[in-house]
């Protein structure tokens, strides 16, 4: 009695996305699927969801072949998908989102009252207080994520598949999601849970299946293993969990004496953040932690010249500067690696070479493109950053998330910036790439780069930053020394009343 994946194979061009993956998910269990980006998890989910067809192999449910040729068929089979990208129709109401494509009709007309009632029932089951008529765009990220769960429930799904559902959620919101999922499990729903966040997997799942490079590694019973075992299985090697902080700490306290490289003085953008005064010194990594909605991304974007501040000033080496555009900022050596690489960083119509060289070339290159020089630079960047790609002529959509992110960081590093702003630098990035990106950032900081990194991933902030600034509802709450900070102390600042720093 289970969901069986039997020797599933899939190739895309020259890439073996899945090479004969077999494992079982027992009915009624919560089963985790983990692996680095590029391990084949997404492809496997797409096959299950009917978006992609396997080249070979079979999926069976209770012993019966169980292939879906379209997402619609998958829904009819009782598979509910909750995607990472949070698909929703922002202009439509909550209930319209839930019933999209499978509307309840009476005599050909939409039966709004029936849909509203069913929506309310499902939302109650998830203990969500949302108006079924509210437009989806008015919901928070967390609620939009739960809306997908609600949609799956409304269609009586037997197998609920979640792909990185907590990426955009705060811890409290994730807790709520887990409560809901545990309830569903008790009710007999089989859960297939895909995540990079190993601790989550341990909280929720009974068993863990690890994929690596498109192949099955092992299935573990959660109770008998620890985080390190899983990480080792995922990357095929051991990764130090925390960098030696103490020595770096000393060096940074030293360098923090003079003028800060970047500082803001009572910087305000009405409606987003108020009176932010902070400094980032050459050679240090300052962490900025805040929950979703705390105004941290807006702050970085304002420093980067995307928005005009309503009040206050930005200083570079003590001198006030005004950036009217990202181009202005980048020319002055202030660059931003934005949060959403798909929307804000990558050009999918151009190949990797162009993506890698554009900022540097557009800022400092001549009118005529130096093709040979650019190709050489791009080749070197692939090597330096260990970006796994077919070559510089590969298009960004052929890269895994981790390699895409490395490319985005690399393209900005090539401009030799003086201040690096990072917004969620390892969002949706696998453990291996995350580690490598952190190492590169640390190395550049040691060479004198001033880094300000925003992350809602607490362990990341704690291991990467020398100093942690905490924002809440648009205001700076205080500052903690990374060496002595704990997840609890940071979270306390981020969620509670002002503490004198």
């Amino acid at each position, binding site marked *: 009695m289970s969901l069986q994946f039997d020797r599933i194979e899939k190739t895309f061009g020259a890439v073996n996305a899945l090479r004969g993956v077999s494992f079982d998910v027992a009915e009624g269990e919560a089963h985790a699927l983990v692996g680095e980006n590029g391990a084949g998890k997404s492809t496997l989910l797409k096959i299950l969801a009917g978006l992609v067809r396997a080249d070979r192999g079979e999926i069976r449910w209770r012993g019966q072949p169980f292939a879906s040729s379209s997402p619609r068929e998958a829904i009819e089979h009782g598979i509910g998908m909750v995607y990472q990208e949070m698909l929703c129709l922002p202009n439509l109401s909550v209930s319209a989102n839930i019933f999209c494509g499978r509307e309840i009709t009476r005599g050909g007309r939409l039966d709004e009252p029936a849909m509203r009632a069913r929506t309310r029932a499902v939302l109650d089951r998830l203990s969500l207080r949302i108006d079924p008529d509210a437009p989806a765009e008015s919901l928070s990220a967390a609620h939009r994520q739960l809306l997908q769960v609600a949609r799956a429930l409304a269609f009586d799904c037997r197998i609920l598949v979640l792909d990185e559902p907590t990426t955009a959620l705060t811890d409290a919101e994730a807790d709520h999601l887990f409560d809901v999922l545990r309830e569903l499990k008790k009710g007999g729903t089989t859960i297939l849970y895909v995540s990079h966040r190993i601790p989550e997997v341990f909280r929720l799942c009974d068993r863990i299946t690890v994929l690596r490079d498109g192949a099955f590694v092992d299935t573990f019973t959660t109770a008998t293993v620890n985080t390190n075992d899983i990480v080792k299985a995922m990357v095929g090697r051991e990764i130090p969990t925390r960098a030696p902080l103490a020595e770096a700490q000393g060096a940074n306290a030293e360098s923090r004496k003079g003028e800060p490289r970047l500082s803001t003085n009572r910087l305000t953008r009405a409606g987003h953040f108020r009176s932010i005064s902070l400094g980032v010194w050459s050679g240090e990594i300052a962490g900025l932690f805040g929950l979703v909605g705390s105004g941290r991304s807006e702050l970085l974007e304002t420093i980067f010249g995307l928005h005009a501040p309503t009040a206050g000033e930005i200083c570079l080496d003590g001198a006030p500067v005004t950036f009217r555009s990202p181009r202005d900022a980048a020319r002055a050596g202030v660059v*931003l690696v*934005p949060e959403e690489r798909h929307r804000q960083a990558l050009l999918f*119509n151009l190949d990797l070479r162009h993506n890698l060289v*554009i900022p540097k070339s*557009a800022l400092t290159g*001549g009118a005529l493109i130096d093709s040979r020089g650019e190709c050489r630079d791009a080749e070197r960047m692939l090597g330096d950053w260990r970006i796994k790609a077919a070559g510089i*002529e590969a298009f960004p959509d052929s890269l895994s998330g981790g390699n895409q992110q490395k490319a985005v960081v690399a393209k900005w590093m090539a401009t030799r910036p003086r201040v690096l702003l990072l917004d969620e630098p390892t969002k949706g990035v696998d453990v291996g790439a995350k580690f490598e990106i952190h190492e590169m950032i640390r190395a550049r900081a040691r060479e004198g780069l001033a880094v300000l990194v925003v992350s809602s991933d607490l362990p990341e902030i704690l291991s990467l930053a020398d100093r942690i600034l905490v924002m809440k509802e648009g205001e700076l709450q205080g500052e903690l020394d990374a060496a002595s900070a704990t997840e609890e102390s940071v979270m306390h600042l981020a969620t509670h009343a002002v503490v004198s720093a």
Partner: protein
Amino acid sequence: MKQLRAMRELSTVAILIAEVVFFAWYLSPEAGRAHPFLNADNALLILKYSSIYGIAAVGAAVVIISGGIDLAPGAVIALSGVVMGQLYVADSWALMPSLAAGLLIGLASGLLTSLLVVIVKLPPFIATLGVMGITRGVAFIITEGRYYDVSGRLPPGWQPMGVPIDWLAPIVMFAMAAIFQILMTRFQWGRAVFSIGGNETAALFSGIAIGRVKASVYVISGVLASLAGIVLVLVQGQAKADLATGYELDIIASAVVGGASLAGGRGSVMGAVLGTLIFGVLRNALPQIPGATFYDRLIVGVVVIIIVVADQLLLRRSQKS
């Protein structure tokens, strides 16, 4: 990407050749008679009139690759021609200043579009729809229904810089196509146009001066349309307000048939020019088919759809492999 682009242009050339071969066969005359389609005079005729579309299509392709659209070229062609005609014929200006004034019309309408798109942030469709109405309207106001007999004032046998008048349009078109093909593929500016069309937000975040680049794209389209306008008037010898009515859609269709994607980020200037030749051949050959007189628009419409669908299927396959 380069290979893909080259392949796409080759397939446009292949369509053009196939089309010529088809009409050469279909319209082949009885023995002893001259071929009505396949002769040098007819080839020049096709080239001459396609080139008017072609010159403007170079600009249209640039705009479309940037993710925008320009509906004004037809009207700008007319207004430039009319202004030139008014100054040269009615006001007895010298030829060169009249031509320059015609080109200034394109510059002005391009700048107006840029202002509306970049500063006022109107969607390009609406902005250029407005500019189209304004330019066409001004052309009617200036002419008050008259037309200008430009050829009557041109010296007999006039050859601009030693070029026979029939060759003027094709030469201008190929020159513009060559210049912009190089600008689009070898220069930072061209890559910026591709970047903005592919992902405007990412282009902004990558330090590209998107305002300046987008403005330049509409100015180029305007100036090239007015260049097409004055060339049309010189070649045809007449300027009037309803000149080039409806050209804008044919021009856009040419760019799309030549591989440009209306979603932006994809296409080529050369492809657009080849696209206008594909239409030029159709426009020339269809009326020669007995009984097809009333079918030519329909056939042109069907051909556009077939070519674009085939292109997308090819693209999908090349992305898969």
